């Protein structure tokens, strides 16, 4: 993946947005600290200046100008002389004493605290220092000035501004780098999925999304995708199998049909023979159509798109009606067909498809049970859910073949002497799946017992639909 792509990812954009929020909030925080601290320094300076003025005024009141001058001279040389400014001036602002060379013009007419850049001599050069000062008129026309150098505050401001600038710069740098790294890292995982899917699109259905084993959300996604791919592969191979079976099972009757017509054409013209051949051809075509219809029914059940036709269905009447349809057939074959109901079995079902499935089960049971046997259809309301069971005393299905018979076109009887297309149980299975029902093939000792077990229907829904 190119670096440019990493910058275009959602992750990177998210990282940028996150970074912007983070920068804004830290700038606000530092700004507040700056504002609060520099305010505190200002207030401290004001207090110092006011305290000094009060002290000096007291000196003046006690000792007069001479006393004041002496104190000022002392203080101008004292350990605080570096950041404190003192000046006593005459009525025309002429300097009397103090550590300032002249009365600053900013303070000539103004009273109260004034902040201004003051030129001071540091060593042998002039420097403009931000100074906070206050002037006070003495009763005899003299003036007193007390000021404080705000260098400390300026330095603090510089330091804080520098810190803000640096921290923002570092945040930005780390944020961008981190965002880039995270998005590249995520992109690698996404790329793995993309590579797999394009591989699959290119025709290799065997490919799977790599799972890192970290158990994170990407692994979860990969596992889900792989499960889906497994399912698709299963369906595809099932489809291939069916297509192959369809091809085989359709080709046989079509070939027969074609051969019959061809032979008839070769034979000596004979109307009666022609009619017979045509009738046989129609019968064969009907069988092919019936097979197609059975496949369509299976497809219909498998599409699962019929959920709207599913309704709360009482199983006993449904089974009674089917049994009634097949009863003469069973009797004709010398079979005892009995119907039993245990409880009021109810399931959510598509009446039409379920009837067809039960019909197929009964049809099979009657077809494969030899004369003198019995076929029993039973509905039951069990703790596990409603059940429909069709049991016969026929040859049964060996345990190892029970799975196989559910597949399409599979018929255990190699000779295929009994009529049928090998789709009956496939339809039953498709219908069972569509209903979320279990299809159980068991040994009836002797014979086969097929059970359709439905999920329980909530009683509260009894009036729905």
């Amino acid at each position, binding site marked *: 993946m190119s670096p440019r792509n990493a910058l275009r990812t959602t992750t990177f954009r998210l990282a940028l947005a996150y970074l912007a929020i983070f920068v804004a909030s830290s700038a606000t925080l530092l700004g507040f600290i700056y504002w609060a601290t520099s305010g505190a320094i200002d207030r401290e300076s004001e207090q110092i200046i006011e305290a000094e003025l009060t002290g000096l005024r007291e000196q003046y009141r006690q000792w007069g100008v001479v006393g004041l001058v002496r104190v000022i001279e002392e203080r101008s040389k004292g350990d605080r002389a570096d950041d404190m400014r003192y000046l006593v001036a005459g009525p025309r602002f002429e300097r009397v004493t103090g550590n300032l060379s002249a009365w600053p013009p900013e303070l000539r007419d103004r009273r109260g605290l004034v902040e201004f850049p003051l030129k001071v001599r540091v060593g042998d050069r002039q420097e403009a220092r931000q100074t906070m000062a206050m002037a006070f008129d003495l009763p005899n026309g003299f003036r007193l000035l007390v000021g404080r150098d705000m260098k400390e505050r300026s330095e603090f401001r510089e330091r804080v501004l520098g810190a803000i600038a640096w921290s923002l710069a570092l945040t930005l740098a780390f944020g961008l780098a981190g965002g880039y790294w995270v998005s590249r890292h995520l992109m690698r995982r996404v790329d793995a999925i993309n590579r797999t899917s394009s591989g699959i699109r290119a025709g290799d259905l065997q490919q799977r999304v790599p799972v890192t084993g970290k158990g994170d959300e990407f692994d979860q996604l990969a596992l889900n995708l792989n499960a889906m791919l497994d399912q698709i592969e299963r369906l595809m191979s099932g489809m291939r199998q069916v297509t192959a079976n369809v091809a085989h099972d359709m080709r046989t009757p079509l070939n027969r049909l074609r051969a019959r017509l061809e032979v008839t054409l070769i034979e000596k013209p004979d109307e009666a023979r022609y009619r017979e051949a045509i009738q046989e051809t129609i019968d064969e075509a009907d069988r092919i159509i019936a097979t197609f219809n059975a496949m369509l*029914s299976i497809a219909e059940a498998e599409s699962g798109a*019929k959920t709207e*036709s599913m309704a709360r269905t009482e199983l006993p009447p449904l089974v009674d*009606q089917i049994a009634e349809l*097949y009863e*003469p057939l069973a009797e004709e074959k010398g079979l005892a067909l009995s119907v039993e109901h245990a409880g009021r079995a109810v399931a959510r079902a598509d009446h*039409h498809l379920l009837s067809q499935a039960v019909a197929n089960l009964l049809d099979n049971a009657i077809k494969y049970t030899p004369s003198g046997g019995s076929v029993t259809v039973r509905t039951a309301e069990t703790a596990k859910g409603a059940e429909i069971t069709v049991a016969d005393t026929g040859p049964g299905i060996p345990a190892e073949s029970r799975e196989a018979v559910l597949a399409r076109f599979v018929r255990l009887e190699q000779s295929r002497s009994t009529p049928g297309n090998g789709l009956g149980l496939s339809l039953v299975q498709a219908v069972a799946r569509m209903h979320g029902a279990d299809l159980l093939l068991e040994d009836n000792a002797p014979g086969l017992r097929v059970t359709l077990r439905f999920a329980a229907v909530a009683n509260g829904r009894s009036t729905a639909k």
Partner: protein
Amino acid sequence: MVATATATRTNPSLGMKILVIEDDREAAAYLVKGLEESGYVVDHAATGPDGLFLASTQPYDALVVDRMLPGMDGLTIVETLRQQGRNMPVLILSAMGEVDDRVKGLKAGGDDYLAKPYAFAELLARLEAVLRRGHTGQPTTRLAVGDLEMDLLGRAVRRRGQAIDLLPREFRLLECLMRHAGQVVTRTMLLEKVWDYHFDPQTNVIDVHVSRLRQKIDRGFDKPLLHTVRGAGYCLREPA
């Protein structure tokens, strides 16, 4: 063969005018030929608009309409005709055989629905059935075919005055055949009308039911009423 067999019978539908709306030329040609052989007078329209025009301007006794048509859907044609107050029976043909499609077809105003591929005999039987339905609007309490009588209210059946004991399903089966007396009723039609199933039971269970009914109503009488029409179905009719 079936067509000629039906035609040689005195067909009350003989000479009735049918409009076939079907876009598949070859299928339409067979259909028209088959229907003509069976004694109908047949017109053919190959597109939806043509079909609708003919059906709204000419008097037809019945329509056979394909669902998928160029220009206009078959169901729309039927709906439009019904809105115009034209109530001739309509048989809808469709490549879609699912129950939902059947319901849609009947809701649109079709009288019967037949999924492709269909047997011509099936179409003929159903066409006859819908044609006949158009004529009898009265609710009946008694049915009679020859010397066979059915009392629908008392649920009793007699032949030549002799009571015949029928099971409920045999009664329903006979009622269906008697209501369509003189017509061919196919196995699929019986399965639909008597049992309300629209699927193909793999073994022909209907044959067994009919043969039981035949034993009860025809056994011991010299002239059988219930006939098997090869390749098509059954027909209950008065002996000639």
